[in-house]
């Protein structure tokens, strides 16, 4: 298939050159920065069909001469920018004006385009498609972990959950193409079931104002978005391949898209296979991953008013869990802690995945319709269905390892109606309703008592958001009300077992407002304040039993009340030019009835020995911190980035630190881009040759008591990374490639938020070779 496409592409290029007769046309134009509206110099301009190009001057101007009549694809790229591709049918001399979103986009300035995204006035950061593609070996967590305010809760090398401003799981929503991801997100070792490679942009909203998203989040949201299919009549796409040495992983990601006036379509597929990962000196047995994902996006419009989009995706993974981290009781945990190398470690590498393992599938089908009533009014409907199928396998007796220990099937239906209106007095109003119905069933195949009960839950929410821009001030206010009805059938701990019904009704209220003051042309101050409530999740109410990974008995508490959170953020942004930007964000979130697992004074005695006993309880708490990031470009070829995150959390009722919060961390990166192309062979040259050296320092988590954990928090560690990338230009096509080395010094380390740190070191050196072919 690919070969054919490639031939087609070559043929197509050939036709273009044959057809060309009158080669006297020119394209002139200018390139500006989208954020600052300042001209961008040294932007590389590359005409795919002719393999020629030029650069912009200090005024952002460029010109291309002696072009023949025909169709051209022009790529605009700049150090640290997401390249922009432009299609043109050249029939006369043409002038182009291009806006590039400079790296400052990662500070959220790209969202100045409020019409598109609607979350301009919240502290947020974005990850571009370029970054996503260059990290195709990573899962969602790995992709965003170097951003400020973001950390990961890991269970070994391949399972990670994102944490934003200290919150994760039930308290953090992930929105996949407009739909709130619905699965077993309560589990500490349940990674989000999403393929980030099918997204064009990942946005992390760190505000207090996620009124339009719902779903029990207390402020922060991760948005995964696919961009609209470009109005390009040709078949376009890319092939990404990467090989990673650690885990001997192969990654393949292919995307194809085409626009026709009748229907625009895009498909995206990913295949991954990894074997055992390696620490600085031993293999982590049974840590392989297999993944196969596919997504399809269809867009159709009727006239200028009615738009219909379909998005379908399927995510399927098999994940091995470190064999040496599978334990039976506290004695085993202590024996694990006393060892340098985990039990069951083997000399040789293997791709085999055996129990303990997870098999997870998540499918989504979504239809959304937008109707522009008139210039000022818009109506949007969404309906979506999701299925989440999670099976977890443990080492079991009597040949039962083939039976999952946990097998949960969740079907979810989402509906949404949203009405937006621009008022005469420059107010913009959005009103909406969102409903979520989830049906969660334990498959009886496990032959054990389920960890969480069967239930059906209904969530209905109404919200309204009003915003207005007046002079130097931008105001945004929102209100939201949700009702949740839980209908539960729980198995009771009686002899013999019986089941009992519970019905819960909860009401949640959120209110938020934000104010953005433009202090001057290039400085702004953004203040967000928000109140949100979250009702206890099913696991917090009803879970019961031994939590294998940490050897503890954890019990739910049916008396839990709704959790209330109040969050304030203040962000200062200074962007004096396209060459320098700075953002400083401080936040404070206080909780009433914060739900957490409280260690009880008793140990529970079982046939497997005594277990520490935890119960879900409530307390008052607060989490506060700040994120700092700055980027500087020197002489258009050197770019420096610095990011620092600081976070503290406290249980204020019991006057002790909150556990499982991210440590403070510092990320720095220095990039150098050669401004000239290098001739490698005849007809092959390397352009945009770039070297990137980065370092991440994760400081020791000192903010816990020694009595709060089985082992002390690991020491501070540094991970050095190196990346070399370039575009290889052949006569009729080009290939982007990169070589990346992570943990360059093969540093031996353990991470506080990796739950396998009790048993094993973290990942050692890993080199990745990546190739990207766009057509």
């Amino acid at each position, binding site marked *: 298939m690919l070969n054919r496409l490639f031939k087609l592409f070559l043929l197509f290029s050939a036709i273009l050159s044959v057809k060309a007769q009158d080669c006297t046309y020119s394209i002139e134009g200018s390139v500006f920065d989208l954020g600052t509206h300042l001209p961008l110099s040294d932007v590389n301009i590359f005409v795919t069909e002719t393999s020629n190009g030029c650069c912009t001057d200090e005024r952002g101007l460029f010109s291309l001469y002696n072009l023949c009549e025909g169709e051209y694809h022009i790529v605009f790229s700049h150090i640290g920018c997401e390249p922009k591709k432009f299609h043109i049918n050249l029939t006369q001399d043409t002038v182009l004006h291009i806006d590039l979103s400079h790296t400052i986009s990662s500070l959220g300035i790209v969202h100045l385009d409020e019409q598109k995204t609607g979350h301009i006035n919240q502290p947020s950061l974005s990850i571009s498609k370029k970054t996503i593609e260059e990290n195709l070996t990573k899962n969602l967590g790995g992709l965003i972990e170097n951003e400020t305010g973001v950390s990961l809760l890991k269970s070994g090398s391949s399972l990670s959950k994102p944490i934003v401003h200290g919150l994760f799981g039930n308290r953090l929503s992930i929105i996949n193409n407009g739909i709130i991801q619905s699965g077993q997100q309560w589990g500490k070792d349940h990674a989000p079931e999403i393929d980030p490679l099918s997204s064009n942009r990942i946005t992390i909203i760190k505000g207090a104002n996620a009124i339009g998203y719902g779903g029990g989040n207390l402020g922060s949201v991760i948005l995964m978005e696919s961009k609209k299919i470009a109005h390009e009549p040709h078949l376009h796409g890319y092939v990404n391949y990467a090989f990673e040495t650690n885990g001997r992983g192969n990654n393949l990601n292919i995307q194809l898209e085409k626009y026709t006036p009748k229907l625009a379509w895009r498909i995206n597929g990913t295949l991954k296979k990894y074997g055992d990962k390696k620490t600085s000196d031993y293999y982590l047995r049974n840590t392989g991953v297999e993944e196969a994902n596919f997504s399809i996006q269809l867009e159709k419009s009727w006239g200028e008013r009615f738009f219909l989009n379909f998005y379908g995706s399927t995510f399927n993974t098999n994940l091995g869990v470190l064999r040496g981290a599978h334990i039976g009781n506290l004695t085993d945990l202590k024996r694990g802690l006393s060892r340098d190398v985990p039990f069951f470690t083997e000399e040789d590498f293997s791709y085999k995945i055996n129990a303990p393992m997870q098999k997870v599938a998540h499918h989504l089908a979504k239809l959304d319709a937008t109707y522009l009533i008139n210039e000022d009014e818009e109506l949007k409907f969404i309906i979506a269905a999701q299925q989440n199928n999670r099976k977890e396998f443990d080492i079991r*007796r009597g040949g039962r390892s083939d039976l999952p220990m946990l097998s949960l099937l969740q079907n979810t239906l989402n509906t949404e*109606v949203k009405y937006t209106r621009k008022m005469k007095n420059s107010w913009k109003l959005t009103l909406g309703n969102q409903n979520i119905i989830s049906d969660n069933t334990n498959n009886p195949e496990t*032959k054990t008592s389920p960890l969480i009960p069967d239930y059906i839950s209904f969530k209905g929410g109404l919200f309204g958001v009003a915003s207005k821009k007046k002079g130097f001030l931008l105001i945004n206010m929102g209100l939201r009300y949700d009702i949740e009805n839980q209908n539960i059938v729980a198995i009771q701990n009686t002899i013999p077992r019986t089941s009992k019904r519970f019905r819960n009704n909860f009401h949640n209220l959120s209110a938020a407002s934000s104010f953005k003051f433009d202090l001057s042309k290039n400085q702004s101050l953004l203040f967000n304040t928000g109140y949100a409530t979250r009702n206890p999740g099913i696991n917090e109410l009803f879970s019961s039993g031994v939590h294998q990974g940490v050897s503890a008995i954890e019990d739910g508490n049916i008396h839990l009340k709704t959790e209330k959170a109040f969050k304030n953020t203040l962000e200062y942004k200074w962007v004096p030019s396209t060459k320098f930007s700075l953002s400083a964000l401080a936040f404070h979130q206080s909780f009433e009835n914060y739900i957490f697992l409280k260690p009880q004074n008793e140990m529970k005695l079982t046939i497997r020995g005594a277990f520490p006993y935890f119960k879900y309880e409530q307390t008052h708490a607060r989490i506060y911190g700040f994120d700092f990031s700055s980027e500087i470009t020197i002489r258009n070829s050197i770019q420096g980035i610095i990011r620092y995150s600081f976070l503290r959390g406290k249980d204020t009722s019991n006057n002790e630190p909150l556990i499982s919060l991210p440590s403070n961390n510092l990320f720095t990166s220095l990039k150098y881009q050669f401004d000239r192309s290098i001739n490698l062979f005849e007809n092959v040259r390397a352009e945009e040759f770039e070297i990137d050296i980065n370092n991440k320092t994760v400081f020791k988590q000192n903010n816990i008591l020694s009595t709060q954990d089985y082992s002390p928090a690991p020491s501070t560690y540094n991970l050095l990374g190196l990346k070399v990338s370039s575009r290889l230009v052949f006569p009729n096509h080009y290939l982007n490639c990169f070589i990346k080395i992570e943990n360059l010094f093969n540093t031996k380390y353990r991470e506080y938020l990796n739950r396998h740190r009790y048993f094993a070191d973290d990942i050692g050196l890993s080199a990745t070779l990546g190739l990207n072919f766009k057509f």
Partner: protein
Amino acid sequence: MASVALGALIFSSCEKDHAHVHNEHEVMTTLTFTLTAEGADTVALRFIDLDGEGGNEPTITGGTLKANTTYAGSIEILNESNPEDVEDVTLEILEEDEDHQFFFTSTVDGLTLTYTDQDADGKPIGQTNELKTGDAGSGTILVTLLHEPNKSGANVSTGDIANAGGETDIEVTFDVNVE
């Protein structure tokens, strides 16, 4: 508005089906360590926790052994979580004897335990064993059953748990007197 109506309809009419209450497999509720010797009373050390992990506290029965006596020991494990359908887990363990081993640790002076059974590889299992008492004294006996231990580990076949790995299926402690 249609979605509100749809939601309301489902809201009022949904009821979750009954959960599947079935026999739990793999659960162990009862361990009996029977010790017999000629000229001495038979002693049954017993651990019972019918409702499984969590919930009610288990019942543990210790015993009194005769000094300077050699007992034949035998361990039986049952799943009595459903009184109507009691399962003998001992058989399951013996079927996978290469993947299981009992370990014994005693704090009683002079009390020793040795293996008297073997799996197909000639490695000990410990389901049957020999217990020798010394002079009078008192203390505890800790019985541990490991799943997938490394039976070839250093000193594992003589009952040293330190290098065995694996995960603990059973770990119970009995009070014993030697008179």
